[in-house]
């Protein structure tokens, strides 16, 4: 079988014409999607970074309770995990078997004051006061008493909770009001 030059050119042209063109999407504006993705990424990475210290100290299993009081704003946060006490993201003292090491307590194993925690909270309170003084019209006498939010693992013994509160209540730190953070408990009902 043979072809003339014209027939051969026609066959080749048709074959080349069947080769798909490169895909070019010229009118899809993906900038808003990239903006959104980047913002979300930054937000997630920031969140992961801020909770990293607490995670290294151990996870906290919050107890559940029948309460509906909303969380306070502006209070300092203290977390008691199974492995340590963390204040505002900084690990202060280690916890082992539900207790702080005797060397960390004033008076040894029977002591209830944890000086390292008291000193850190005192410094934290000093920083907060200094920031508040920069606000025009701020009157320390009229300001509400400082509050400490306590987030504790459900297995934390009452003894350790008291030690933490006692240390925070010392004159140097001066936290007199405490807010215990719990997970809201919803009634469990049989599904219909």
């Amino acid at each position, binding site marked *: 079988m043979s072809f003339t030059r014209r027939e051969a050119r026609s066959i080749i042209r048709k074959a080349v014409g069947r080769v798909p063109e490169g895909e070019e999407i010229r009118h899809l504006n993906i900038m808003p999607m990239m903006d959104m993705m980047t913002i979300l990424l930054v937000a997630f990475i920031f969140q992961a970074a801020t909770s990293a210290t607490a995670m290294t100290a151990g996870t906290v299993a919050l107890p559940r309770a029948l309460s509906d009081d909303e969380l306070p704003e502006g209070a300092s946060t203290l977390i008691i995990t199974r492995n340590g006490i963390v204040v505002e993201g900084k690990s202060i003292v280690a916890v082992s078997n539900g207790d702080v090491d005797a060397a960390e307590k004033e008076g040894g194993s029977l002591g209830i004051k944890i000086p390292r925690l008291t000193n850190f909270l005192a410094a934290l309170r000093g920083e907060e006061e200094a920031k508040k003084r920069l606000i025009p019209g701020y009157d320390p006498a009229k300001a509400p008493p400082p509050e400490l939010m306590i987030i504790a693992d459900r297995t934390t013994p009452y003894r350790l909770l008291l030690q933490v509160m006692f240390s925070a209540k010392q004159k140097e730190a001066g936290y007199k009001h405490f807010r215990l953070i719990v997970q809201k408990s919803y009634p469990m009902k049989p*599904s219909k």
Partner: protein
Amino acid sequence: MNFSAHRVRTKTRAAVKRREDDVEIEEMESGELNLIPYLDMVTNLMLFLLASVSAGLILVQIDTTLPDKAPPNPTNVTQPSTNPDDQPLKLFVSIKKDEMILWSASGLEGTLTQPKAVFRRSGKDGDACDGPYMCESNVCDGQKQACVASREIPQVVFDYRGLNKALVEIATRRYAGKQRKTDTYQIILQADGSIPYSTIVSAMSAMRCVLPEFGKEVAGCALPTDDENLKKAKEPISPDGKLYDTARASYDPKKMALFHEIAFSSGFE
């Protein structure tokens, strides 16, 4: 001049190959960024980060104080002429390892030796529950509304609803329909050093407000306040029902706090 079929086929293949190469070069040189790998990476990262975020937790708070250590004060003794309902009851909830007792230092609602009420431990596997806080295993089967075994560290559970019922009875008997004084809301919680935090917060919840009926959602209660704005307002209860003016509102234990001023105690000296 004629071409054989074989030659035409060879030339066609060569022409198609050249065209494909040209298309590829055009794609690469057109200046369009290939965003597919970027999108793959971002999507994977997003999924990973979303999975690592603990979702669905609704946090609430219970406030408390740690009282100052004080020596016995002889001037603080209640005068016999004072109406018992106007006196602070000095109620105590003492949590031991095996029982929880309700008593009062004033002697008006039982004493340490003869408490007002004693609550035994509960929450064994199979006991009725409407939440994990009622189970030693910390797991409540929603279908059966019963505690089931789990691998979690067991928690100490008492009859919190019994404690709540006893406190509602005291508040109703002494203060319902009257203007309740602000210093009568205090209650002191003392516990054995080994009692876990989960037990403490469950007992505190039972002291603050009337608990919802079994299986019902918590409705909360109004707290007494000295807020000047509320004192000037027409209604003695705030619009959101969270605060009330004790000087004007008559006490209703179903809507208002029972004993919400909870102070922790480490014991007596």
